[in-house]
């Protein structure tokens, strides 16, 4: 039984994945692409990393899996623990052993991550055989079992189909089946439902949640959609321009947001209820690596920015693991209107 080859639980005293510091550089630029990124996820827990395009949310997880293109980004600082042991980003063979085995990943666009020339059953079986010493028929049996588990009807028949014969939702189910075939302890899902319609998105989110409850795996979900975050997150990390500007339990982030960026992001979300007032926005655009402001990286778009914001913001704590990087948090106690 392949499923028992990998031990699935970690001692509860330590996080499953503990990213204590992760900084990435880009070429010769002194500005870090990712700057002191820090987060942790426990077994059975879902951490959502939320942010807009270019904020570094995908890059951080690709770096952890050792999937960054060679020679583009340089790791400047990495202090990571996986199941309490040092997780060395500079050791490619160790990363390869983890990748697809106890750490699995699913991507946004299932069509580009599946090989169009092979039947989906073969692709799942291949993933099983890559990390386990099992026969071909055992691997195939495991593949069929996984397809059934992710809710694909007639799995034995679907095994013999090619990716193009499946719909977008079905392909994402195949990707999930492949990712979970080796019973990973940690699943990293990068915008897994962004390319899907809402009714299908709802099915896939339910599936991920059910599988997680069943297996006790930890999940890192990368998304831009605060709605998805509210549905599934236990913990949230809000990322802006390569920095985690606020993080904490989901309830704290949604009910007591502290960072001006989190507040701006939530204000610009169109809502299904309430009055249809004009939407608030976050003025301006995300800075590039060349135009990165000194100090607080959000200061170039922050409506509250003061001269002091050109210096690095302090990390302020709001209880129960809720922190924000802002000179003026909590805003309501620190700021007032100056013109009546």
């Amino acid at each position, binding site marked *: 039984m392949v499923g028992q080859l990998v031990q699935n639980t970690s001692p509860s005293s330590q996080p499953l994945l503990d990213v204590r510091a992760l900084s990435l550089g880009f070429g010769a630029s002194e500005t870090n692409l990712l*700057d*002191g990124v820090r987060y942790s996820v426990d077994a059975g827990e879902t951490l959502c990393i939320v942010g*807009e*395009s270019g904020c570094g949310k995908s890059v951080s997880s690709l770096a952890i899996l050792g999937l960054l293109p060679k020679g583009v980004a340089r790791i400047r600082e990495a202090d990571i623990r996986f199941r309490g042991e040092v997780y060395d980003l500079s050791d490619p063979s160790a990363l390869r052993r983890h990748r697809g085995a106890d750490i699995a990943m699913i991507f946004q666009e299932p069509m580009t991550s599946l090989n169009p020339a092979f039947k989906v059953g073969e692709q799942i079986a291949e993933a099983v055989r890559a990390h386990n010493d099992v026969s071909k028929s055992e691997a195939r049996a495991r593949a069929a079992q996984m397809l059934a588990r992710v809710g694909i009807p007639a799995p034995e028949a679907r095994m013999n189909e090619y990716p193009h014969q499946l719909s977008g939702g*079905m392909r994402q189910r195949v990707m999930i089946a492949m990712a979970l075939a080796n019973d990973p302890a940690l699943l990293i899902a990068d915008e897994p439902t962004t390319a899907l*319609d*809402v*009714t*299908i998105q*709802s*099915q896939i*989110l339910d599936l991920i949640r059910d599988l997680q409850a069943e297996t006790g795996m930890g999940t890192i979900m990368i998304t831009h*959609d*605060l*709605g998805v975050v*509210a549905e599934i997150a236990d913990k949230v990390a809000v990322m802006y321009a390569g920095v985690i500007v606020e993080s904490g339990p989901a*309830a704290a982030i*949604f*009910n007591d*947001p*502290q960072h*001006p960026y989190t*507040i701006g*992001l*939530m*204000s*610009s*979300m*169109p*809502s*299904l*209820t309430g009055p*249809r007032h*004009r*939407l*608030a*926005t*976050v*003025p301006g*655009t995300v800075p590039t690596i060349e135009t990165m402001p000194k100090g607080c990286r959000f200061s170039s778009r922050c*409506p*509250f920015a*003061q001269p002091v914001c050109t*210096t*690095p*913001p*302090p*990390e*302020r704590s709001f209880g129960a693991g809720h922190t924000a*990087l802002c000179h003026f948090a*909590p*805003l*309501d*106690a*620190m*700021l*007032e*209107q*100056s*013109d009546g």
Partner: protein
Amino acid sequence: MAEPILTATNLVRHFDVGGSLFEKPRKLRAVDDVSLTVNTGETLAIVGESGCGKSTLARMLMRLIAPTSGRMTFEGRQIDQARGRALTELRRDMQFIFQDPFSSLNPRLTVGRLVGEPLETHAPALSARDRRARVAELLTQVGLRPEHTDRYPHEFSGGQRQRIGIARALASGPKLLIGDEPVSALDVSVQAQVINLLADLRDRLSLTLVVIAHDLAVIRYMSDRVAVMYLGRIVEEGPTDEIFARPRHPYTIALLSAIPVAEHGRIKQKVELAGEMPSPIDPPSGCRFHTRCPFAQDRCRAETPQLRDTGLAPGHGAACHFFEEIARDAVPPAQGAGTGMTDGARARFALYAQALAGRTTRPRADAPPLPGAQPNVATR
């Protein structure tokens, strides 16, 4: 003042797929018998999931493709067979905003050329200097700066590129704009900027808008009326507030309940849809939604429902045999409150809104002392 500007009656568009020397091609029924009216000055949203035919419908309304059958009028003129000069004139009055601001702008042209190009076609009499002035005016209108004329598209962010696309669409002085997913490629914070811009332009230039979208929350902020499409047909139509408060078609109800709401701890009444949208090549008999509808009965498999007035609000109709019974038991999808924001958070949101509105803030004199300026190790 509900003066129709654009009408479509029994619009049909089929595409041939497959087929060979020995095999007859099969018909893909992308749009099948759609009738709708767009009134002057309003924003009509057409929503639906991928494959429902909404983009085909938009392209047909724009006359980028011709309908297989059906009638269309623009300001009283029949346009479904228009060609040549009549079509060119139509293009001046009706313009299109594309979804992807990255692939819809020629990377080799400057912004000035991109925006000026439609002027060369639609206002050939304009002198070069007048054209430059007009381009500068258009750029200002969409919130860009006249200095941007000499730059190329790659120098702009996604939101700015969408503004260029809008300026280009406005160049010919259209009466009607059709946007196919105009904000869905943009990040939330930028998306809000473009939604506000389109609303401002509509009011300032007395435009009529047709917006095609898959995101119901977005169209709630953009539209006066909504038409919901499923597999080539309109299944529900009505005033926007009405559709969100009292949806009647089971598909609309399911669609609304599937949208994740960005609020913590909200318990939602979900109407789960099994399976996926069937292929438009061989659509289900009767009501096309019956294969996924949790309320389907024998009659739904046999008989195609027509759009019927719900009697709830003028212009609210649903194409379902049983919407009265279904809706009676349905809970409004957006019901149920979340765990609620703290008072401090409410105050912060208010501060943010006021700061955006241009009111300046300053540190409070009685603010708690900044704890010993110890920068976080993480942000050196």
